């Protein structure tokens, strides 16, 4: 308690100093810069942007790109800056709906510049276009990467047991049985970190719901579809079925995700369903020679049905209030070039959104690009949910199902209610 108080005082003192400094510097220094040759870019953590700006500065002598990074509280910081008119010239935005710095919220309120007429606009794949377009039909952002959800398998551990990554739902359950017989956990599940609750449902609904009806969210808005009365029910039941079949570690609700990462590294757990970028994260902390295989997670017994749950990752838009429109648009065009895309995606640890004719080296990127080219991808559902309470309802619901307090039907009813809040 003492420490909290002291900390708060120190914080207040620091804030006071910062306030004074701001006051002295005047109000002109917001996110933008007074210098016509300085372009400011807001990023939400990571250093992928810093890996590509040198090439832009080289191609545009005299121009400096300043990255303003906010790894924490990015949405709050940027929403406040947009409101106050002090946001950087180019800002990272989130595809679809979901928060105040997302395309369909900030874009619809007129905070992002319409770039529909850019040369690169035609290269944006169909699966990203809607997420980056406002409800008025204006394309406002350039996508940088595709993030996806799939099974991440410890290949060495699989080889030892003579198993392969399953390609159908029946094989998934068989895989669980085989793993259990060998004394291993098939799929690690760390629900104590709530964001992981959604991974398997998203992976399953890509095939079960969104492959069948890509406009499912729109139908929900119109009132012709609901979670409860859709294959979402099947997806959650299959989630429970996996649990009943002993696919997961003991009591997932009490297990942190980092413990799952470690168990996959050591091979005690054979696999986990997670986001693609986890391939590099898990590999980075693993033993020498750890080989991971990434595969789409099946939901039916026909491998041809399987859709990859993939979505547009970090995207960048021009702040409508900037006075450097041309330079900012030029920067977006630069971001859309295949070389930039691949440099960015490699550093980011995922798949480039607009690789053009170029190819990335990583196996993950090749798998994802394959699915994208075949049109077998379904966006993460939350990116088109109109209310921010649907996703937490799923998080809480999954935890409640795993502690035996709720059923898939109850969870979906709550999500339906949240959807129309």
């Amino acid at each position: 308690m003492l420490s909290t108080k002291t900390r708060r005082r120190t914080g207040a003192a620091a804030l006071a100093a910062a306030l004074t400094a701001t006051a002295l510097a005047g109000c002109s220094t917001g996110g933008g810069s007074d210098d016509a040759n300085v372009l400011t870019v807001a990023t939400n953590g990571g250093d992928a942007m810093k890996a590509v700006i040198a090439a832009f500065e080289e191609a545009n002598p005299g121009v400096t790109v300043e990255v303003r990074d906010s790894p924490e509280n990015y949405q709050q910081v940027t929403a406040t800056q947009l409101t106050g008119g002090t946001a950087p010239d180019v800002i990272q935005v989130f595809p679809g709906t979901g928060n105040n710095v997302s395309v369909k919220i900030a874009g619809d309120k007129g905070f992002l510049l319409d770039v529909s007429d850019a040369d690169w606009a035609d290269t944006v794949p169909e699966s990203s276009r809607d997420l980056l377009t406002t409800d008025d039909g204006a394309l406002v952002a350039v996508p940088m990467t595709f993030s996806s959800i799939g099974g991440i398998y410890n290949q060495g551990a699989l080889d030892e047991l003579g198993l392969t990554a399953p390609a159908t739902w029946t094989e998934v359950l068989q895989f669980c049985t085989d793993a259990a017989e060998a004394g291993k956990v098939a799929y690690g599940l760390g629900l104590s970190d709530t964001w992981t609750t959604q991974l398997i449902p998203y992976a399953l609904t890509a095939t079960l719901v969104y492959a069948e009806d890509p406009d499912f969210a729109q139908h929900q808005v119109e009132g012709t579809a609901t979670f409860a009365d859709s294959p979402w029910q099947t997806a959650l039941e299959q989630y429970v079925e996996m649990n009943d079949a002993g696919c997961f570690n003991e009591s997932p609700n009490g297990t942190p995700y980092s413990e799952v990462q470690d168990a996959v590294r050591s091979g005690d757990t054979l696999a986990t369903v997670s986001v693609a970028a986890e391939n590099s994260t898990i590999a980075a902390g693993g033993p020498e020679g750890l080989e991971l295989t990434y595969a789409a997670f099946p939901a039916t017994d026909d491998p041809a049905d399987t859709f990859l749950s993939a979505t547009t990752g970090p995207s960048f838009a021009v702040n409508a209030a900037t006075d450097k429109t041309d330079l900012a648009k030029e920067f977006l065009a630069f971001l859309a070039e295949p070389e930039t895309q691949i440099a960015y995606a490699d550093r980011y640890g995922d798949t480039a959104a607009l690789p053009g004719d170029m190819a990335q080296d990583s196996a993950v990127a090749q798998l994802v690009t394959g699915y994208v080219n075949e049109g077998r991808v379904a966006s993460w559902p939350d990116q088109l949910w109109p209310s921010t309470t649907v996703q937490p309802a799923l998080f809480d619901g999954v935890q409640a199902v795993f502690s035996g307090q709720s059923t898939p039907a109850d969870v979906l009813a709550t999500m339906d209610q949240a959807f129309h809040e």
Partner: protein
Amino acid sequence: MMPIKSRSAKPVRTAGIKPPVWFLAPAVLLYLAIVLIPNGQGLFFSFTDWDGLGSTWAPVGIDNYRAVLSDPNSLQAILNTFMLTLIVTIGQNVIGLLLALGVNSRVKSRHLLRLVFFLPVVLTPIVAGYLWKYLLTPNGTLNGLLESTGLGAWRQNWLGDPEIVLYSICAAVIWQGAGYSMVIYLAGLQAVPAEALEAAAIDGAGAARRTWSITLPLINGAIVVNLLLCVIGNLKQFDTVFSMSEGGPSGASETMATIVYKTAFTYLEYPNALAQGAILTLLVGVIGFVQFRLTQRKALA
């Protein structure tokens, strides 16, 4: 304050001079800018439908408060907060007092023990929370320890079972706070005159009797301070809960502070979060005030 008077030196002539009122200005300005104005704005926007982006909003009266108070999750969080505060306040003070009595005796290792018991206080709560989280996983240290000592039947899903999670968090909070209470009690105990205890001992009072009839009444001040700090601190409990369970599983360990955070930064329902914050502030204020009044009267009696 009185100036120190010295007979040899000339009296310093400061007693009659009052510092000018405008000396207060920097402090007042800072307090306005950092505390009063933002809080006032927060309170104001809790009566609007402002969504955090842009400057459009409309007044909605007490709708946000009504929504918060009719939301079962908020009510559960309020209930959890009271439970946690009650358990931690009792646990931390009983243990803190026992520790203080222990290390106040003439045990040889008392200096070392004081240090050891105080150590957890030095840890940042969020770090302590993460440590406990890993100790309490299904295959974590505690369950391993129980297994290896033949108490495998006592294994629990400490943070994953909605029936248990709140108590596990209470235990971690008590573990961290007991040393803090101990120090305050120790300060009180050191002020208890040895003569009084000796006299009682000569009169034939045993250790328990001496503690009950002499020590405890004499450290009333320490008890009041400890209870007050404990109650206020735990009504606002956030760090340990959030690092151990994020309020889960499915809201079973949500407190008022974690639900304010989630409403603002996960659900992005700023006006509702502001209303929750206002309710939390009001509760802490009222409970703290009432408790202070009650215990003050008792302390004076």
